[in-house]
């Protein structure tokens, strides 16, 4: 039975060399120091099992751990599991756990906790993990430190589903037999991670302290981490500039501040650490309504969007122009697809072809665009889209609303066009197929196939690719998917997002994996200057 095996020390040392900011002559890390990081917005809870928001993932990622972590090129790395094996038929996954791991309350961590988490907890509460865990026919713990997953059919992406926010391991002794959502222990999270919750002053900060009983000897190096809640973007920039905080990530810092902050001597910029999430932003068409139901219209829109402008003037050079449905950092990406460069003539030609003639006011057709409620940058994207489409005679009315209003409209298909941004979660089968397959057209569910795209061939290819075992075969199917979709333009993919992470240079080893700031920070240490 051939096995794939990755050994911890090898993988780690190889990675450290690749990381930006990690000094080549890495000195022996020293204990001590307090990291002060920005967190925005404030997480609703630190119980990572019941909240999948990014802020929760960032903070709780230090408290809870999963079986694996992922490198920046999305190779699995050891987490609570020190090694793992996948059977040749792709149906049996065996994880060997670290020994002597303890929960924050002193109870030992065992394979039973993993079994409980996978078979009960996640299936009950975790919308993203649920369909993955349901693929398991059985989950067993042959001994205290071994967990075996027997899948109903092969599912190659299964190995990509074990980072803390997708599959946090929770203590069975606290949650088993309780109401998971209302358990009072959610206020006092008990994990296995290198940091423990000390205090949460709502509206102000979250204070994490070193877990002295952490299973990796000598780690973590830091004494404490403070997460400062800073709702105003201006205040966040000032905080980083003045050294009041040491770490910012995701959209904490507005893109146009990046060039200025990058030049500051005490700060270091990296865009690594977002590979697992692999977020992409696109323009979504509700395919149920004319004129969006006409492929020519969608292509015309695609041709009218200057994506260089979007990257350079809205994201200030952060990000890559998306070529199709799959993010270039995740497996099975294929660049060999039809291209849609900026071409206003072609765009107008397509619209003319459709019979959408310009009226006396120069307008061919009017559509409403729901702006994404995730921050100013998406408002600017909406404003740009309005202007860009005006050039070819499509008049866009922007509608803004908060997350609730936007979510309600989109999930109930009550929109014409909207932007969307979503993570691809390390594998097309986890983060991509859900947007295009017919079986996922589910009214009332956000992040499903809301625009109503249906193509039997696509359904078939995604279905087969997920359970296929042969790599070449899998790649061929995903390549075909990408070609078909790009021709069809069910949505107009705009940009693969890159986020600026600013790190105060006193701190080292902050970004060591493809899950970035959501990782456990066991290796972060401070250098005396």
């Amino acid at each position: 039975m051939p096995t794939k095996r990755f050994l911890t020390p090898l993988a780690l040392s190889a990675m450290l060399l690749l990381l930006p900011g990690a000094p080549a002559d890495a000195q022996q890390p020293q204990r001590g120091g307090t990291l002060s990081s920005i967190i925005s917005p404030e997480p609703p809870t630190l119980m990572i099992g019941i909240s999948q928001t990014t802020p929760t993932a960032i903070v709780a990622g230090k408290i809870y751990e999963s079986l694996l972590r992922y490198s920046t090129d999305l190779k699995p790395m050891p987490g609570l599991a020190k090694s793992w094996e996948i059977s040749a038929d792709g149906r049996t996954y065996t994880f060997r756990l670290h020994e002597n791991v303890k929960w924050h309350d002193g109870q030992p961590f065992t394979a039973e906790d993993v079994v409980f988490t996978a078979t009960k907890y996640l299936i009950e509460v975790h919308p993203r993990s649920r369909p993955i865990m349901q693929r398991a026919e059985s989950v067993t713990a042959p001994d205290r430190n071994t967990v075996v997953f027997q899948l109903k059919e092969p599912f190659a992406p299964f190995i990509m589903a074990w980072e803390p926010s997708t599959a946090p391991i929770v203590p069975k002794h606290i949650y088993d037999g309780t109401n998971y959502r209302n358990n009072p222990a959610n206020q006092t999270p008990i994990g296995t991670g290198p940091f423990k919750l000390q205090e949460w002053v709502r509206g102000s900060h979250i204070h994490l302290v070193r877990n002295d009983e952490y299973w990796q000897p000598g780690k973590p190096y830091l004494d404490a981490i403070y997460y400062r809640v800073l709702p105003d973007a201006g205040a966040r920039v000032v905080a980083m500039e003045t050294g009041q905080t040491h770490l910012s990530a995701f959209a904490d810092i507005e893109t146009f501040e990046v060039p200025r902050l990058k030049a500051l001597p005490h700060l270091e910029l990296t865009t690594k650490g977002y590979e697992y999430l692999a977020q992409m932003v696109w323009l979504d068409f509700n395919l149920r309504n004319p004129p969006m139901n006409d492929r020519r219209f969608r292509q015309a829109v695609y041709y009218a969007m200057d994506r260089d402008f979007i990257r350079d003037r809205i994201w200030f050079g952060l990000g890559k122009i998306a070529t199709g449905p799959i993010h270039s950092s995740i497996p099975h990406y294929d660049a060999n697809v039809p291209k849609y460069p900026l071409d206003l003539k072609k765009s107008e030609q397509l619209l003319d072809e459709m019979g959408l003639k310009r009226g006396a006011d120069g307008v061919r057709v009017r559509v409403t665009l729901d702006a994404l409620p995730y921050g100013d940058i998406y408002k600017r994207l909406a404003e740009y889209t309005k202007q860009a489409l005006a050039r070819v005679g499509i008049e866009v009315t922007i509608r803004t609303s908060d997350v609730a209003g936007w979510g309600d409209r989109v999930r109930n298909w009550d929109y014409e066009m909207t932007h969307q941004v979503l993570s691809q979660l390390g594998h097309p089968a986890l983060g991509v197929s859900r947007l295009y397959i017919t079986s996922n057209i589910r009214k009332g569910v956000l992040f499903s196939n809301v625009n109503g795209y249906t193509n039997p061939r696509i359904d078939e290819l995604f279905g087969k690719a997920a359970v296929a075992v042969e790599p070449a075969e899998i790649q061929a199917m995903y390549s075909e998917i990408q070609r078909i979709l790009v021709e069809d333009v069910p949505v107009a993919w705009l940009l693969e997002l890159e986020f600026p992470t600013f790190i105060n240079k006193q701190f080292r080893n902050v970004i060591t994996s493809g899950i970035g700031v959501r990782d456990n920070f066991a290796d972060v240490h401070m250098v005396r200057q």
Partner: protein
Amino acid sequence: MTGMEGLRDFWQRYRRNKGAIVGLAVLVLVLATALLGPTLFPGNPWDMAGAPFQKPFDPEFPLGTDTLGRDILMGIVHGARVSLLIGFVATFAAVSLGVILGSVAGYYGGLVDDLLMRFTEFFQTIPSFVFAIVLVAIFTPSIASIVAAIAIVSWPPVARLVRGEFLTLRTREFVQASVVLGRSSRHIIFVEILPNAVSPIIVAGSLMVATAILIESSLSFLGLGDPNMMSWGFMIGSARTVLRTAWWMSFFPGLAILLTVLALNLVGEGLNDALNPRLTREGR
């Protein structure tokens, strides 16, 4: 006294307040911008005409460009219309509502007054800005929902003011004379009382326009502006995060708001002096 004489008299009293003259001049300038601006500066303020983050005092973009390369001067010129529109329409709505409720309460008194005043109190107890945020958030930010929210949170003081005026004026002898002559309540409210309560309403209204513009800017600051309307509040709101890098993006629209609100206040004071001669600050 003919109308002309009245106007001259009014102007005489108004003119004594130097600040009010300055305010009027600024306001006329802003109004002219709002009316003529789009003709003098034709074009679309949303056009991403230049490179983003262009510094001001450049011949092509005298006030610089914003984060998407839009001309700030163009935005201010076109935004004048939107900001003033929001200010005036919201004020008009609030004043209308306040006048109707206040005059009914003040004229009829008794139970009607009691009920209407409890109703007013109710709206005065909810912190108005919190309420405005809820209204705008719930009905999605648009120029209509912003105007409505501002009007809904702004009318109570007008209602109280008008009620107070009506309570006093109702007992005035000329009103009683009208009753004795057999005039209807409608005639008494609209012909006898209301014209005498107009001065304080105008003064309160002029200040309310100022407040409305400020509320709109605060809503925009929190991200609750209308994304299809280039208003000054919207410009500040979208530029607040760039404050450190590009001061001009929020400075110029901020200055426009400051000047306009200042002018409205000065004009309000001048109107107060001119319309309520009893309260003139003459000799002070």
